[in-house]
């Protein structure tokens, strides 16, 4: 069985966590460049240009693109034929995050107790980690820090099957409208439909990991994505909510079978700091 040592995992996580916070992915930058052309509002265009300049400056000066360097979210795909040695995998992942945030000048935003004391953990751990077992003997780690401005506007609804597509669409549009400027548009909207309560939330977050403009391979999901992006951009929110025609640069939908009595929908709202970086070990 192929072995991967924890030290290698720590180093890799540290690297992708710093990189993701300093450098916006190219597909996201391209999306904003084409949004400058599409945007009809003058102030909207101006905001988009500032966003692009911010991305360029952050990369050049190796600084955090946004001061909210987020909850550290890790998606870890573990090949069923790989063996982790040298310690605990969860500890290694958190150690990589700790090193990235303390040594990479990233903001520590996590508090131990969510309700009462709310004392900062000082190193942005613990991470939120999602594990998936996949075929093969590799470990693939995706880091996607998520700021609270947009995460706080995300919503989930357990709709009735009778609500159908109209109900789903209304819920998505309502969520985006309510999120408005608080979520720092232009947005990427991740939608999970189906599964159950917790699984549709995960699907909506997972949808955000796809590249901007990469449509779903599922023809139904693809049709929904195209319809939603058109309608979301008719809401008029525009860049930073100052009014405009580019409210979202992308909508990605993930579908999953569900119970005969259910129609779960989750909308994960992503701000313009659509940061992620991957590594394969």
């Amino acid at each position: 069985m192929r072995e991967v040592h924890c030290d290698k995992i720590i180093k890799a996580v540290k690297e992708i966590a710093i990189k993701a916070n300093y450098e916006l992915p190219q597909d996201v930058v391209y999306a904003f460049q084409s949004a400058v052309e599409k945007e009809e509002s003058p102030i909207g265009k101006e905001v988009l240009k500032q966003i692009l300049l911010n991305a360029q400056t952050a990369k050049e000066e190796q600084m955090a693109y946004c001061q909210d360097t987020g909850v550290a979210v890790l998606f870890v795909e573990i090949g069923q034929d790989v063996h982790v040695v040298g310690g605990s995998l969860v500890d290694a992942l958190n150690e990589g995050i700790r090193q990235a945030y303390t040594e990479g000048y990233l903001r520590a935003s996590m508090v131990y107790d969510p309700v009462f004391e709310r004392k900062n953990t000082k190193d942005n751990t613990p991470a939120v980690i999602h594990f998936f077992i996949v075929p093969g003997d590799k470990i693939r780690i995706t880091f996607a820090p998520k700021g609270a401005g947009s995460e706080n506007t995300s919503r989930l609804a357990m709709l009735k099957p009778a609500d159908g597509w109209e109900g789903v669409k209304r819920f998505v549009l309502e969520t985006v409208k309510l999120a408005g400027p608080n979520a720092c548009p232009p947005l990427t909207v991740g939608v999970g439909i189906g599964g159950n309560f917790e699984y549709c939330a995960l699907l909506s977050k997972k949808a955000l990991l796809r590249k901007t403009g990469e449509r779903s391979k599922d023809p139904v999901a693809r049709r929904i994505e195209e319809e939603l992006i058109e309608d979301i951009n008719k809401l008029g929110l525009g860049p930073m909510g100052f009014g405009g025609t580019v409210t979202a640069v992308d909508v990605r939908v993930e579908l999953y079978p569900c119970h005969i009595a259910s129609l779960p929908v989750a909308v994960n709202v992503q701000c313009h700091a659509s940061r992620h970086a991957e590594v394969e070990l």
Partner: protein
Amino acid sequence: MEKRLFTPLTDQVIEELRVGDKVLLNGYIYTARDAAHKRMVEAISNGDMPPFDMKGQVIYYVGPTPPKPGQVIGSAGPTTAIRMDKYVEPLLKLGLKGMIGKGYRSTQVKELLKKYKAVYFAAVGGVAVLLAKSIKSSEVIAYEDLGTEAIRRLYVEDFPVIVANDIYGGDVFEEGRRKFARIEI
């Protein structure tokens, strides 16, 4: 039209500001977000004074990243303002004149702005590296244990903001959205 303003702000300056005005702020401003607001307002309700004199001042809702060696401050963009709405009135009562953040304010805060003659400025969320360039000095003045949430006194030069809510009830987000909305839900 771009207006260059200097803190502290007076009632006369506030009266001249209208929703959508582009403003370049200059002078000292103070940082505070969720945890610092909670402490300041608790202090006020216990009969103590907050760590700085609010009169004519502007609070910037921000929790910066740590500075690299040689930097004044790290990335420093605005955080969502509405989370602070619960704490606004006691500060306005002490003379606070401006707040900088991102996103909507509640109807209640919009009313308070009229009552106490203050404005809410929006900065562009997420352009944290660019905004940091307008910050020329930064000094923690209170609640150091809160880390990024400590109260800092910043000296800013031409810090770019937009008047989002004025004392006349205007709302830059509502007005902007209405201009471009093709569907209503």
